[in-house]
């Protein structure tokens, strides 16, 4: 069973099955409400403040936050907290830069995806095409990792083998995504987000109780290695700082977050959204921080044997230190984190395949909803194949997912919608440089050909390079005050 602990008690099984049934129920409910492409891709703009804010945060909080995050904290102490702490400033920054512009863009144009916005902003199908390509790369990587994580969680809960577990979880995800599109997605995201927050706060309180309070936990961790509880943890200082930069500005560049901003009933619903998303995420970060440190403290105090695999930190703590009900809720929260991110990517991938890439070549697909459902199924098949049979590729794509989105979307969309000097050529150059830099640097690091100096994070450096290219090319190409390449309605959006 590949060393994954099994936690299939009647209580955890009941909670997990109940959770999956609610997700399916939301899919069935949304099916009757999904008639147009706008319904399928951006909910027909029917969403209120709380749903969009919680859905935005839960899309960003993937399975990594519940498994990989505590594992990194167990292994390297506070280093990885720079990733999760960055979200407190990331959501408000994303709102300052994107919320109004994206929502207004949807007001004046028929935009359903990020490449739609790029095509409108730059009057360029080339920029639309490259954006769609960058998104597809990132989406396949992210989906592959979510499939693998789904297999592990289903194995833990149901005691079945990894492949069967992944297939059952995916089948449920696919059914509700195909039926209800993003409408089902945002309502399940909302439901899943509430579970994640509840589970995280409960686990934090439990950790404080088991570990004897934060000071005691910190003291025990310091006895193991004082660096682990220092501000930068066991990794290099530059790793922590570049993580903070990448995750603070990269949030607005994540398409599964950014496209949620199209979806509100009206622009006024966005007012408190950045704050709500940031607070919800901060509550989930409590789990990331407390679980890893508490487990490390227990090991140091001799109350638990050292873990062989840091990724099992969360599951081990749940099995051995929490009541079954809480373990069941947290495991449902973990499934929620995986499924909410997976659903968003399936939807974005379907949009890239049936809408963005064909439109970049001047073709419009008839009956977009039908073909989007087929594309969703196709993406599930391809990503499952990748996840199960091409694990090295998935690991690579998964690692560079966040950085790929940040490098492509931050300069071209986030800065581009707030700076009138950006040009189409600069946008395409930035996307290509971001993609190439991310991929080549990750591959060279993996095969020990070249590593960035001082522990700097590849995604952060690639994003900085893409921003430099975008700004430099635009400044060279276009004089200040030249607005000849902006359509009047887009100019109004940029000036509002």
């Amino acid at each position, binding site marked *: 069973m590949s060393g994954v602990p099994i936690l299939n008690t009647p209580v955890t099984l009941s909670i997990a099955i109940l959770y999956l049934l609610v997700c399916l129920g939301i899919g069935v409910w949304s099916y009757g409400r999904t008639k147009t*492409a706008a319904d399928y891709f951006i909910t027909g703009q029917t969403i209120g403040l709380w749903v969009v804010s919680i859905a935005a945060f839960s899309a960003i909080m993937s399975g990594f936050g519940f498994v990989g995050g505590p594992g990194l904290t167990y292994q390297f102490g506070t280093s990885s907290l720079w990733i999760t702490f960055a979200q407190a400033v990331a959501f408000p920054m994303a709102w300052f830069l994107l919320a109004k512009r994206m929502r207004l863009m949807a007001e004046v144009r028929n935009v359903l995806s990020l490449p739609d916005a790029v095509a409108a902003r730059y009057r360029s199908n080339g920029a639309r095409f490259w954006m769609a390509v960058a998104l597809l790369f990132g989406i396949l990587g992210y989906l592959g990792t979510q499939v693998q994580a789904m297999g592990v969680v289903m194995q833990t809960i149901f005691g079945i083998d990894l492949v069967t577990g992944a297939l059952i979880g995916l089948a449920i995800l696919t059914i509700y995504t195909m039926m209800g599109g993003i409408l089902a997605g945002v309502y399940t995201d909302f439901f899943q987000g509430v579970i994640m927050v509840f589970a995280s706060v409960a686990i934090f309180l439990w950790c404080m109780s088991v570990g004897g309070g934060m000071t005691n936990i910190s003291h025990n961790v310091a006895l193991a290695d004082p660096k682990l509880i220092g501000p930068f943890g066991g990794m290099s200082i530059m790793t922590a700082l570049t993580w903070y930069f990448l995750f603070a500005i990269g949030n607005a560049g994540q398409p599964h977050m950014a496209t949620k901003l199209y979806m509100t009933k009206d622009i006024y619903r966005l007012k408190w959204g950045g704050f709500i998303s940031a607070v919800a995420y901060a509550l989930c970060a409590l789990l990331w921080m407390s679980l890893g440190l508490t487990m490390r403290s227990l090991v140091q105090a001799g109350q638990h044997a050292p873990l062989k695999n840091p990724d099992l930190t969360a599951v081990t703590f749940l099995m051995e230190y929490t009541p079954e009900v809480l373990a069941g809720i947290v495991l449902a929260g973990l499934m929620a984190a995986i499924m909410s991110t997976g659903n968003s990517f399936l939807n974005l991938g379907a949009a890239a395949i049936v809408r963005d890439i064909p439109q970049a070549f001047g073709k419009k697909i008839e009956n977009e909803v039908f073909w989007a459902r087929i594309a969703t199924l196709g993406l599930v098949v391809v990503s499952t194949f990748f996840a199960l049979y091409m694990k090295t590729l998935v690991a690579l794509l998964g690692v560079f997912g966040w950085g790929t989105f940040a490098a492509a979307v931050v300069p071209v969309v986030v800065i581009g919608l707030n700076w009138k000097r950006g040009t189409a050529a600069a946008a395409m150059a930035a996307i290509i440089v971001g993609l190439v830099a991310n991929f080549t640097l990750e591959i060279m690091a993996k095969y020990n050909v070249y590593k960035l100096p001082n522990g700097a994070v590849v995604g952060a450096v690639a994003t900085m390079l893409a*921003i430099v290219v975008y700004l430099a090319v*635009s400044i060279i190409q276009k004089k200040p005050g030249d607005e000849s390449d902006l359509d009047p309605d887009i100019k109004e959006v940029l000036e509002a």
Partner: protein
Amino acid sequence: MVKYSGELLLAASLGMLLCVWLNWWVIFPLFMILFFVIYVAMGAERKGKLGPAAPILWVMGIGYLVLFYLLIMLYKANPTGMPKSYFLGFPPATAVLVYGIWLLPLLLGVAYALIFDNWIIKKEDLERLQVHSWKKKEKESISIKG
């Protein structure tokens, strides 16, 4: 500042890249904070002015500078030794990370909401955009049934 936002953002990005290669980790936060402030200023700017967003940006920039350099100062005082004291459960430098760098920026979300109605989006913006919205609805009222 807003007039040269592109150039300033470019300078901040190049500064961060330089710090990465030279391992100037003490200087890196300076360029990162400059980047954050210019970045948010781009989003808050209206016709070259920052209005009520200007004091928010000042507080954000100075607040970040104080927190980052307080953290660095405390870290340098005891980089690898056992903590001599704890503040609300953490060694002092880590407490600055947890209670300052993590939690205080949440207030930026409150600031956004506070200036939303009188600065972020105004009635006249929506009235101007209404014209384009009607044109869009005329041109693109296609609904594709699934």
